[in-house]
């Protein structure tokens, strides 16, 4: 087998080496708030976990530079990341020994950089493997489940991120709330947006009137939008106390959901219209000529064929909204944004992370799920 160099792999491997030398994997903080100092590589490398990681990372980095089977690269880089995560947990006791009871270990910039680089290696290998969409989804979800199993086992319980987690008994409730806020605005947006999109497709006049308005709504920054909505909503709540009972108030869930709903409309409407615009006129004429009624054409022909384009609009909306819900934390909407803003207020970086990481993960998983759906709806049609 000729040993040919993989350029991307080489770049990533060099970057891994640089990160290990230059950036700290862990920071030792005197307490929860004060910034810490990086744990020097020399000290880290004396630990058994870190040694195991380095021993595995060396062959991984070398193989990633070569053009070997992507499955091998995927397996090795995925294993390296698992071992890294394991090492940081298992070494933490020894690293903390001799520090005060308030001292904490926090994940350092080196860890985040390695996470990114190993993630890129895995992504590259995964793409080159050309797996079926469903298999890819299962693989990723399985891997994440393994990571979570490690964390749930208390592996990182000495790291400050997990300490913050254990301080937040409502973490999972906030997660559910975060998703409910995101999806709770998307569902009405679908119910309103899909028919509007179809109208836009059928009538250029409706399109010319509607799309600019929706685009304008999109350009309003989210905080400004929350502010704008607070005023009418609180007025509404004042004049109709019954509404306030149901949570329609100036702050909290109502303005958040309403704002997200408004943001969601443009991608849904324009992708629905684009999906319908792209339908083959011959197909539609054949369907009508064979005696399908309007409704049969819509459900049996137009919607299924426009679905991939519509789903890519949904993908935009889902990832966007999961991110925007975090901002809603500021106006008391709940969700992971709550931790971000609390953490910012207390300058507790790890509490901020406890809000950001799950938000990113949720958005990533949602996008992955929809990509799988798109691939499955397209497989037959194309």
């Amino acid at each position, binding site marked *: 087998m000729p040993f040919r160099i993989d350029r991307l792999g080489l770049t990533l491997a060099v970057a891994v080496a640089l990160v290990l030398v230059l950036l700290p994997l862990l920071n030792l903080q005197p307490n929860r708030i004060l910034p810490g100092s990086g744990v020097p590589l020399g000290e880290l490398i004396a630990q058994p976990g870190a040694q195991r990681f380095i021993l595995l990372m060396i062959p991984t980095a070398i193989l990633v530079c070569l053009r070997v089977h992507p499955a091998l690269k995927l397996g090795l880089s995925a294993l390296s990341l698992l071992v890294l995560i394991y090492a940081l947990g298992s070494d933490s006791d020894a690293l903390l020994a001799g520090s005060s009871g308030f001292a904490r270990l926090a994940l350092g910039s080196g860890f985040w950089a390695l996470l990114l680089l190993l993630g890129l290696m895995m992504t590259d290998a995964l793409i080159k493997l050309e797996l079926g969409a469903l298999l890819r989804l299962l693989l990723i979800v399985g891997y994440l489940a393994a990571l979570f199993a490690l964390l749930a086992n208390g592996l990182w319980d000495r790291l400050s991120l997990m300490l913050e987690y254990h301080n937040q008994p409502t973490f999972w409730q906030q997660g559910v709330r975060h998703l409910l806020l995101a999806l709770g605005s998307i569902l009405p947006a679908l119910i309103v947006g899909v028919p509007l999109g179809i109208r836009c497709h059928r009538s250029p006049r409706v399109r010319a009137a509607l799309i600019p308005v929706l685009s304008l709504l999109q350009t309003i920054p989210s905080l400004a939008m929350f502010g704008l909505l607070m005023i009418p909503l609180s007025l509404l709540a004042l004049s109709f106390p019954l509404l306030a009972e149901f949570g329609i108030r100036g702050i909290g869930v109502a303005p958040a959901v309403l704002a997200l709903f408004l943001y969601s409309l443009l991608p849904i409407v324009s992708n629905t219209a684009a999906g319908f615009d792209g339908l*083959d006129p011959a197909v*539609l*004429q054949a369907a009508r000529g064979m*005696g399908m009624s309007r409704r049969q054409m819509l459900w049996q022909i137009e919607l299924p064929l426009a679905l991939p384009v519509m789903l890519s609009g949904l993908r935009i909306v889902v990832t966007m909204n999961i991110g925007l819900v975090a901002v809603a934390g500021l106006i008391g909407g709940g969700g992971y944004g709550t931790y971000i803003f609390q953490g910012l207020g207390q300058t507790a970086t790890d509490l901020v992370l406890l809000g950001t990481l799950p938000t990113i993960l949720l958005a990533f998983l949602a996008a992955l799920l929809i990509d799988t759906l798109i691939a499955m709806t397209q497989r*037959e049609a194309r």
Partner: protein
Amino acid sequence: MIELQGLTRVFGERTAVDNLNLRVESGQICALIGTSGCGKSTTLKMINRLIEPTSGTVLINGEDIRNQQPEQLRRRIGYAIQGIGLFPHRSVYDNIATVPRLLNWSSEQVDQRVHELLDLLKMDFDTFAHQYPHRLSGGEQQRIGVARALAARPELMLMDEPFGALDPLTRERLQGELKQIQRMLGITIILVTHDIEEAIRLADQIAVMDGGKLLQAASPRELLRNPREGFVSQLVGGEERALRLLSLSPIADLVQPTELFELNEDTPSIDAHLTLRDALARQLWQRSPVLRVVDANGATCGAISVQELLSAGGGN
């Protein structure tokens, strides 16, 4: 029997079809021919109510089509178009099953019918039934388009340039198959085409249109013999006309007893079911004024001479 009576359709300023009268007997193929934009497709679509006429009537077996719901009417009429319009998200099987399912046939009936149709179009069920259309060649897609149009056993088929996008060989083969199927099922076909050769090969009646008007409707033979002055003459005329006429008759029509000629071992032979045009071509090619005519079993059943062909070939 289909009758178009005073059929007119105006789009804005433009009269796409202008007072068209045409009668197509049951079990016949009628070809609508004319230049681009002369109103052929519009005429066809008024028959299945994809377009409503501005004035005039369409009668199918004496009954005005306006008495039927458009959807019900269309399910009774086969429809095949140049773009084919197979549903890309449905398998060949489900494409063919479209109209039977709209008509609520049972799944056994549908299944049996799909088998029959793939058989009829000489396509292997196991190979094709569960393919998606984008995997098929143009000719295969066209066949599926025809099968789909035939699915609910329509008595009338409308075909809008069904073989437009095919290479000449495939097109000729499909034309042959279509004619065979049509004779076998005894259905009526109204077919739009640009191609006079296709019209002559397939049709019992050719209707020539220009600028929305019907110029002449006649059998291919009549049209070739006595075309109206102007557009029709241009369309069928030219040097090809004599050969086209010959192509309309089988050799059997002009076979003479072998005794009239001195046939020997070297006399070239030709199948009786071929056309007079084929016979003339063979005579030219073999430099032989007389051909031995043989039947399907290869037995000599007569002879054909170039003099007979000359007498049959000309106009009036």
